[in-house]
Structure formats: structure tokens, C-alpha cells
């Protein structure tokens, strides 16, 4: 049997990759994908803990997270389209009208 710590480590690594990609990537869609990766890392953590505590609730939370992620995706892609229409670019470095 795979020990709990392996799952948690994998979850933490995936989360860290998501954070790193969020900070490094320049395309808005890729940035958005890295947020999804972070949410899925959390899902993995939830399921691992649900198994550890023998509680179904942890697995149910995953569905809630998925629903929220889907809602975020719908809204997020709509906003991305609005940005693209006004700026004709998806590079965050060029979406820079608002600056100090």
C-alpha cells in the first residue's frame, strides 16, 4: 500500500509547480491552467486525507472543488475573451494599462 506521505508529497509538488507556473508563465491561458493545477493538487490532498481518516466527506469536497473550478473556468474564459477583444493580445506583459 502506498503510504499517505507519498500522496501528500505529490500533492505539495503539484501545488508548487502550479505556483511556479503562475509566476513564470506569460500567457493568460497558461496562467489560468496553472491555477487549475493548484486546485487539482488540493483535490489529491483531500482524497488522500479522506482515505487516511476513513471519511467520505473528504471525497465529497473534491466534487465541490470541481464545481467551483468549472464555474471559475466559465467566468475566467469569458473575461479572457473580453481582454483579447480590447487588447488583441494574451501576453500579461502587454496588458499593462494600469500601472503605478
Amino acid at each position, binding site marked *: 500500500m502506498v503510504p499517505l506521505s507519498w500522496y*501528500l508529497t505529490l500533492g505539495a509538488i503539484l*501545488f508548487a509547480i*502550479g505556483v511556479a507556473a*503562475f509566476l513564470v508563465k506569460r500567457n*493568460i491561458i497558461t*496562467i*489560468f491552467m496553472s*491555477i487549475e493545477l*493548484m*486546485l487539482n*493538487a*488540493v483535490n489529491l*490532498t*483531500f482524497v*488522500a*486525507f479522506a482515505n*487516511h*481518516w476513513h*471519511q467520505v*466527506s*473528504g471525497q465529497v*469536497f473534491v466534487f*465541490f*472543488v470541481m464545481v*467551483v473550478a468549472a*464555474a*471559475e473556468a466559465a*467566468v*475566467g474564459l*469569458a*473575461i*479572457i475573451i*473580453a*481582454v483579447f*477583444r*480590447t*487588447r488583441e493580445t494574451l501576453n500579461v506583459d502587454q*496588458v*499593462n*494599462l*494600469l*500601472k*503605478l
Partner: protein
Amino acid sequence: MNPQLNYALLLPEIVLTVWGILVMVIEPLLPQRSTQKGLGIFAFIGTLAAIAASLWQTTIPAGTGWFDMIRVDEFSIFFHVLICCISAVVILASFEYLDSQQIRGGEYYGLILFGTVGMVLMSSAVELVLIFIALEISSISTYVLAGFRRRVATSAESSIKYFLLGSFATAFFLYGVALMFGATGSTSIYIIASVLQSGQTAGTGAPLLSHGLAYVAVALMFVGIGFKVASAPFHIWTPDVYEGAPAPVVALMSTGPKAAAFAVLLRILFGAALNTGSGWFWLVWISAALSMTLGNLGALLQTNVKRMLAYSSIAHAGYLLVAFAARRDIGIAAAIFYAASYAAMNVGAFAVVSHFARSGERYVSITDYSGLGKRSPVLAITLTIFMLSLIGIPATGGFFAKFYVFNAALKSDLVWLTIIGLVNSAVAAYYYLRLVVVMYMYEPQTGEGKLELRTAPGMAAALVITAALTIWLGVAPGRVLDYARRGADHLRPAAQQQSSFRSPASGYPQDVRIPQHQAGDR
């Protein structure tokens, strides 16, 4: 009927949801290109109904329901009323704005109402996953609202920035929830508190997985909430988003989600994590000091009024966090009172900005305000009231808010934090007063004629309400402070009142005793 399914506990949320749906259904039936004011009045009535529903909740006994996910007590009712009032005033202030910017009202008012549902739910949720969902309901609505002038590049940009950074922060919050679930085997705030206290999980008696995990979880949740309240070092998004978003929406999102997020933070820090004790104390201390300093220094440099108010809202989040670092018996009430008085003055300030900006939000730089004292004396006087209140001049709500916060901090021996806060208040006076000076001492520059408030009855009503509340809180704060204290009392021994509650879904014992926490044990 299952006694767990107590609809009375959810009444404000239900009213707001139904009203939001009605607004969206009615909107297509209205003739195209007509004024959206009727719809606005309808939405306004919805928020009034929600306020009435919240007030009615005071007549039912405080308690939890929905499988211990919802708790309605004076603490949550206070925030219900506060948040619904914010939405009501914001809707009033939007009437003329929507017409002048040619925004369709159905989605706009609908989203404000749905966002309010999320914020109201945040303040009464006592279960971390429900808090997360409520947070997302309010956030997703505000992401869309921020981009409502979608043909304008700055508005779309503000929306995408808010969306990306907001989702990023929410992921941190959610990771914190997952780790807290892992450490304690539960996501209910009260059960978490008892597990952290006893070191044993409630159901099986299995040992707590790790205290370190719980610390990390609280820190991660603090990142997520810190973003929502725009406290440093998670504040970078604030000026950009506030500058680009429509001004009435900024009035909403600089106060409503903030108040709700502070309610959540109070619940998590004082409800669940209470027994990790001083673990989060330095977290809050550093964030408070940083927010006050960075917010005020940033505001000094601004030439755009919306950006200036954005930095000021960062600074105010810092003042509020000072109350979190203070002793719990006085700190919580101070924090609640600060949230209320900050909401009154900040909504008012942004309402003036939104009225003055005119179509296309042309006039938002500080020099545009020159001569406003002559062009529109009433508008200038109300803005002056809000500025004085934001500084914290006596006879305004801002004074007592700051007074109670720093008083609580001093009584808790937080001398350095108090000094940092007071120095910052002095710095802040400079940029607030600069706006007042520009209004009264400079000659008009914009070439526009007189600004008539009479043509904008909704805006006028919003300004009267916020100005009256600001002054009322400054002259007679006793009543609201009293409510804040009672709410704080409910938050504190909630664990004790909660001594027997069921959680049939997960097989916890019927009686989970949570000892009362002693004040100031830090």
C-alpha cells in the same frame, strides 16, 4: 421535516437569491434602451427585504443548522445587516451610473445580489468548505462586476487581474482547508477547535495528525483571506483593480467582501485556531504593520483618486488587523465596529467619486477635483466628511473606529504596533487633506459647469445615508458598539454554547465539549 433543514437560518440568502433571479428574469421583458432605474429600485427593495429578513433572525434563538454548517447568532446577524446595507447603498449609487455608462442593468443588479448572497453566507458559515464556496460565490460575482465596462480596456484588464490573482489566492485558502482537514479529520470550525485543544480527534480518539500541519493550514488560509481583505503583502492587485473597475463596483468590493472576509477571519482565528494560541499572532502583527505602512506610503504618491483610495483601503485593512492582534475580549468588538464604520465612509467616498467621474470615468485625477467646492458645494462637503472620517477626526465614525482599535492594542501591550499605527494615521492625514485642499482652494480646471446632485436622486440618497451614518457613528457610537460587543461575545463562548451538537453524517459523538477559552492567554 428534518430539523436540520432550518430555512429560517438561511432566510436572507434565500431572499437575495430569489430577488437576483427575478431581476434577471424581468430585465429582458423591459423595452430596450430604456432607463434601468426601475430595475434598480426593484433590486434595492430586494436588499431591503434581506435586511428585514436578517433583523427578523434576531427573534429566533441563536443556533446552528444544516448539519452544523450554518450558525446564526448576533455576530452573523450584525454582518448580514452590514453587508446588505452596503449592497443597498451601492445599488442606489448605481442608478445614474448605469445610464450614463450604458450598462445593462439585469446582469449588473443580479450579480450584485448574488455576490451579496456569497458575502452573507460567508459571515454565517462555520464549516471551512462552505466558507470556501461562499467565498467563491462572492468572488466570482465581483470578478465579473469589475469588468462590466467591457469595451473599455482598463476595465477588462482590471477584471482579468482580479480574476487571476483572486483564484490564485483562493487556491491557497483551499489548500489550507485541505491541510486542516488532514490534521484534524474535520472541517467544522468547532470540531477543529476541540481537536486542537485535546489533541484527539473527536470520533475515533485517534491522535491529531500533526500540530505543524495545523499551523501551516492556518497560514495558508490567512494568505487566501489576506488577499480578499487586501492586506500586505497580498495587496499588489488592489490599486490596479480599483482603478479600472466601475466606481460603484469598487464601492462594493472595497467594503462588502472585505467585511465578510474579516468575519471569516474572526471565525477561523478566534473560533477554530484559538488553541494554536500565539501561532498566528506574529502573522497578523507583521501583516498589520506592513499594510498600514505600505498602504499609506503608496497613497502619498498617487495622482488618481481611485488609486489613492485603493491604497487607503490597504491601510485601513492594516488598522483592522491591529484589532486582531489585540486581546480577544476587546479586540473582536473593536474589529467589528471598525468594519462597520469603514464601510459607511468608504462606500460614501466611492459614491462621490463615481458621481463626479461622469460618463467614461473621465474625471478621476486629483487635479480634476479642484474647485469642486464652488462647482458643487454639497458634493464637496460630503466628500470632506468622508475624508475627515477616513483620517479619524473626532465626530466622525472613523475616529471611534481607530480609537477603539488602538485602545484595544494598548491594553494588550502592543505598544510598537500602536506607535506604527498612530504614525501612519498622521501620514494618512496628508493625502486625505490634500484632496480637501484641492477642492476648496484651487480654481476649477475641467471646464464642466456646475454639478447638479438634484438630477441624480439615487446618488443623493446614497450620499445622505452614508454621510448620516458616518456622523452618527462618530457622535453616538454606543449603540453599534454595543451590538459589536454582543456579537463578539457570541463569537467567544460559541464553543461553549455549542457544547452539544450532532454531526450525523460523520459519526462524531453527540457531545463534543469544548472548554471556554480564557481571555488574553497569550
